[in-house]
């Protein structure tokens, strides 16, 4: 009898199946083309695989908010400073939404290292970052594929200084017009998020925050020459405390911007319920940066002290958040009732409001919009940008900025040729031939963003590191870079774009140093991959289908 119970009480191993979340080709051909190749390689090693095509905002809801995915092929925003790894990988962010650890990755040693690097600078920090990258590559919470080179088409007669700009922040739109200032500049966008929602805190509608970056000011901005004061006229550091003096500025509804607004913003972003709930409900998008802030102390109507829990070189990042008007956002603290997102008492109104029309203080204000069609902004008179003296003058590009949603790249390029658009704001996919463009120039940028295969480590069998490593080795990054990216990419072995941070033995060297492809020139050696899975303790059934335990 005992034997029967022993046998019946056990679950039979089930066939392993995975689903890959990807974007449709209209939104991002790279994502679905990688997904198709990964699918066929997974199937070659006996893993049933399906593809989920999701629109860009549904993709962000399912992957970044609901964590309802197995594998996702997406562009990670990345970061210039490797501190973005803290919010990307620290286990405390696993339950949260946004690009904060959507993988559900937990590793105690890495947690410690990620916190420690914030207190370091110079060579010590570089060494520790190197160790973190090494550890991450071993664990494969995600598999970085390539840093894409972004191509944009623009009208040379109207737009200039486009080359090299990543257009991941409002600042990149300044100094763009060739004549002193255009009446109107029209930019095509492929992701219509900005025509539907202008909430700088929204996870599902904000990717880069470029448009909201025009509407809201930050204390400082990242420029090609480093982080410089913006809404702050001065930032004086003493130890890890920054004494900040604000410029004179007004909200778009006429109210005066004060240091109270700034202090409110830091409080609000770290708990959008403002202490109303038992646990704080922070704004996911700025989670990593907010964690750097210790206290804020308003010293006068236009000055305040912010104390950081980090070295000033790292703490700078915390100055790069949009300052919100207290009189608008202090009422947005109630729990949200919303459709589309699983309601879990973890969202306040401020996180889900469409925030249209927005009240900001930036150089541009909202005029009009039509969902999925367009968004129109106009220049604000007497914004401090006019008198700003950075290393070079900063100028707004046009009196009116129009963002027109296009269904796909050919339409955007057609619009450039026809003179309808001045610039394709969303990068043109690599498979689009730009040689035949009648009018217009091509600009190339090398942003720190990277395409990656994201694993949901909460789900079996992706919770198994060995399994993830085998899946990572089904991806031929070099081949993808040549064929899918058409050469417009740098192959990635780590998530950090700047090679100066990457230790010697982790650099790309004719193959991935940690998870080299099982095969050659895009052709998989399935037998080797199957052996690797068997070595990792997996079994196959008589039809060659991989078995594992689900649930």
């Amino acid at each position, binding site marked *: 009898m005992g034997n029967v119970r022993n046998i019946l009480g056990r679950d039979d191993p089930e066939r392993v199946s995975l689903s890959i979340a990807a974007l*449709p*080709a209209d939104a991002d*051909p790279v994502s*679905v083309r990688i997904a198709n190749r990964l699918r066929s390689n997974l199937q070659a090693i006996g893993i049933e695989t399906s593809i989920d095509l*999701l629109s860009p905002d549904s993709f962000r809801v399912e992957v970044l908010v609901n964590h309802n995915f197995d594998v996702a092929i997406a562009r990670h925003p990345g970061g210039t400073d490797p501190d973005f790894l803290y919010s990307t990988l620290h286990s405390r962010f696993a339950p949260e939404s946004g690009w904060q650890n959507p993988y559900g990755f937990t590793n105690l040693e890495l947690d410690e290292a990620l916190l420690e690097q914030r207190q370091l600078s110079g060579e010590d920090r570089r060494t520790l970052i190197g160790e973190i990258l090494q550890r991450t590559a071993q664990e494969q919470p995600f598999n970085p594929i390539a840093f894409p080179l972004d191509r944009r088409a623009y009208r040379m007669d109207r737009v200039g200084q486009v080359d090299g700009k990543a257009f991941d922040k409002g600042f990149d739109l300044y100094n763009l017009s060739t004549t002193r200032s255009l009446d109107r500049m029209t930019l095509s966008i492929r992701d219509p998020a900005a025509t539907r929602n202008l909430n700088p805190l929204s996870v599902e509608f904000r990717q880069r925050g470029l448009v909201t970056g025009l509407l809201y000011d930050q204390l400082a901005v990242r420029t090609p020459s480093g982080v410089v004061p913006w809404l702050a006229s001065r930032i004086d550091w003493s130890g890890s405390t920054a004494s900040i003096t604000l410029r004179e500025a007004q909200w778009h509804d006429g109210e005066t911007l004060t240091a109270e607004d700034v202090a409110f913003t830091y409080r609000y972003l770290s708990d959008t319920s403002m202490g109303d709930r038992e646990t704080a409900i922070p704004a996911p998008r700025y989670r990593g940066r907010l964690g750097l802030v210790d206290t804020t102390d308003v010293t006068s109507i236009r000055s305040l002290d912010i104390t950081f829990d980090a070295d000033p070189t790292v703490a700078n990042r915390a100055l790069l958040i949009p300052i919100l008007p207290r009189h608008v956002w202090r009422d947005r603290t109630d729990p949200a009732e919303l459709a*589309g997102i699983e309601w879990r008492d973890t969202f306040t109104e401020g996180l889900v409001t469409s925030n249209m029309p927005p009240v900001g203080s930036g150089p541009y204000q909202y005029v009009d919009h039509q969902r999925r069609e367009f968004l129109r902004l106009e220049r604000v008179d007497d914004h401090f940008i006019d008198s700003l003296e950075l290393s070079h003058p900063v100028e707004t590009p046009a009196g009116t900025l129009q963002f027109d949603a296009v*269904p796909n790249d050919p339409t955007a390029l*057609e619009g450039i040729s*026809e003179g309808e658009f001045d610039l394709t704001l969303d990068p043109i996919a690599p498979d689009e031939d730009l040689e035949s463009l009648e009018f217009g120039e091509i600009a190339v940028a090398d942003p720190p963003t990277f395409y990656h295969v994201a694993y949901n480590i909460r789900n079996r069998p992706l919770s198994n590191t060995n399994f993830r490593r085998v899946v990572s080795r089904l991806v031929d990054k070099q081949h993808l870079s040549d064929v899918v990216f058409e050469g417009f990419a740098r192959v990635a072995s780590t998530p950090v774009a700047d090679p100066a941070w990457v230790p010697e033995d982790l650099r790309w060297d004719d193959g991935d140093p940690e998870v080299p492809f099982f095969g050659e020139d895009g052709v998989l050696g399935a037998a080797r991959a199957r052996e690797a899975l068997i070595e990792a303790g997996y079994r196959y059934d008589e039809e060659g289908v991989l078995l594992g335990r689900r649930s």
Partner: protein
Amino acid sequence: MVLDLFIRLGFVVGALVLVGLATIVGYERLRELREDWFARTLSIVPEIGLLAVVLLVNALAREFGPDLSWIIGLEITDPIYQLEGDFIVWVQSFASPPVTVYFSRMYVYGYAFLLVFPLLAYMALEDNRPLRTLVIAYASNYLLGLLFYLVVIAYGPRNLLPDTVEPLLYSTYPEYQNLTRQVNRNTNVFPSLHASLAATVVLLAWRTRDTYPRWLPVSAAIAASVVVSTMYLGIHWATDVVAGLVLAYVAVELAERVADRRGRRTPFADGLLERYG
């Protein structure tokens, strides 16, 4: 840019309709139509009203439907692909530039002509039943199609398989993208309304073959080209087309029944006729 296209579309379809009226409808019926057009229009006011309401609902649903369907809808792009495999890739293996030109024109101009011409041809008949049936069938297609679009999310082949399926229409005529996006969202491919409306016209052409013997082969040829074009151009899956054909059959059956339920002329229309006719 879009306006240009609509004007061009109007000219081409207008010219085709004139040819059709001359060769298929004939002078005698057109003369009668000239005398009786007002009364005939009045006699189908309820049907036209129905179609107008359906198109209006359709337009509103196009604005807000996508958000709703992402919440309640079922995403079936990959299941469709698993079902039919690389059929579309096989269809496109016959592609050549002149064929692409032919099918692109059929997809845009042939389709528009196919929908517009029978409205006038049936209006030229003294019996208004074919016309009423046609209008109700159009409305049923849109209405039933709309229900599917709300509960089913499916992207076309070019969105899942950019490596193997060419977006032939838009790579050959990028300007058409602007035309069709006024009408369709890229998540609305199941079922194919191009297929269902084209098939609807042919089904009714069959039922009126005694009156318009020439229209049946002409409409069948155009409809077949339109149906093939949706797949050839990489816009629809074969599954969408099959579902579209089923939808056409259901819509026509439904329209026949509704048309049966009321006599040739309604009291409402008779009242209007008495007053203005």
